[in-house]
């Protein structure tokens, strides 16, 4: 990476819209500026049903849940069967390894691991998205929709886009510059 402060600064343009006037054509204009959907993000105070942006969100969360669950079953088998075999003590004429008990304990640890792994993956994913230069604006939660566009180090482009957003009806446009911290 070249050690050039001018070229490593990144710009993020954030336009705030009234949800009633926020219309998909804006996105078309921005796309025509050569900005792929991947660099755009819509910020909202509640989840929007329709995805206006054409980017595949691949979250293999359910797969992680299943993997967590399988690991959990292993943990349960270790506790219920493994520890009993490590130090076999006879109690009440019962078998050392009792299948229903292994079932019950594995069920609980399966659920535990599945939920914990899902949670950790979710938390990491949510926290990680933040790294891409998106910023939060308190006004969004007051009832507006934000459109955030990453334009890299092209200052001229940032201004063009902010112009575009203003024309499209944004009541506030900000250009945020993130200094590279290399």
């Amino acid at each position: 990476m070249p050690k050039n402060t001018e070229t490593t600064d990144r710009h993020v343009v954030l336009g705030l819209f009234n949800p009633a006037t926020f219309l998909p054509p804006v996105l078309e204009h921005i796309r025509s500026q050569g900005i792929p959907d991947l660099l755009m993000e819509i910020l909202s105070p509640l989840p929007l049903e329709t995805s206006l942006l054409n980017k595949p969100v691949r979250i293999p969360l359910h797969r992680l849940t299943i993997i967590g669950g399988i690991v959990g079953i292993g943990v349960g088998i270790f506790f219920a069967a493994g520890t009993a075999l490590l130090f076999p003590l006879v109690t009440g004429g019962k078998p050392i390894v009792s299948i229903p008990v292994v079932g019950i304990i594995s069920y609980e640890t399966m659920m535990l691991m599945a939920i914990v792994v899902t949670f950790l993956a979710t938390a990491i994913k949510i926290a990680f998205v933040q790294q891409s230069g998106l910023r939060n604006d308190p006004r969004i939660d007051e009832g507006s929709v934000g459109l955030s566009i990453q334009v890299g180090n092209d200052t001229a482009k940032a201004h063009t886009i902010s112009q575009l957003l203003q024309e499209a009806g944004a009541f506030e446009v900000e250009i945020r510059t993130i200094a590279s911290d290399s």
Partner: protein
Amino acid sequence: MSQDPQATEEYSKTAASPYKWEMVVDLDRCSGCEACVVACHAENNIRISGEEEAAEGRAINWIRIERYWEGDYPNVKAKFLPVMCQHCDDAPCEPVCPVYASYHTPEGLNAQVYNRCIGVRYCGNNCPYVARQFNWFDPHWDEPLAEQLNPDVSVRSGGVMEKCTFCVQRIRSGKEAAHKEGRRVRDGEITPACVQSCPTSALIFGDRNDPDSRVSHLKKSRRGFHLMESLGTHPAVTYLRRLSE
């Protein structure tokens, strides 16, 4: 001495096999004198509870004589039932302990590990014979009773479950003595305190795996039964029915 040569031969072949301790309670002989209760207290360092605690239902007795009245006045009859830990083969108290404080020894004893017990008291609930006793407080003995504690038996702290051990300390020393002489324990050599003190010999103790032992014979008696046999706990204490009526 043997009445069944084949069984004796079998027994000597399996001389290395573990003992299975068994007690027989002859209800016909029990007079309800409670000498066994006193002997048990002295032998096993059972805490002194006193009148007040006894009234609260907290007196600890590893063996107790349950007294049931039958008939109407003036034709009443007292019936006595000595109850101690039945050392069940399928003991309900053992698997419910979350920390293995209660487990089964290879000799058929239902062992209680005082140091491991944390006092959840599930075992106490699950014992159909209410044989398990709990230390609600730390133990104390009035002077000079504290001077006569049995050094072979550990004193249990508060918060710990305890119960009849079949005088495991006597079983141990008996086995050690026999081991030194390179033989098995003889029948009648080991007597728990209650058995030793019973004036009518209502209590008999011995090895169930020895076909010649007195308990092995008595156990086969037509009078023999187990307490709450229908629960399937397979107790190691056999009761002999009363002969009268």
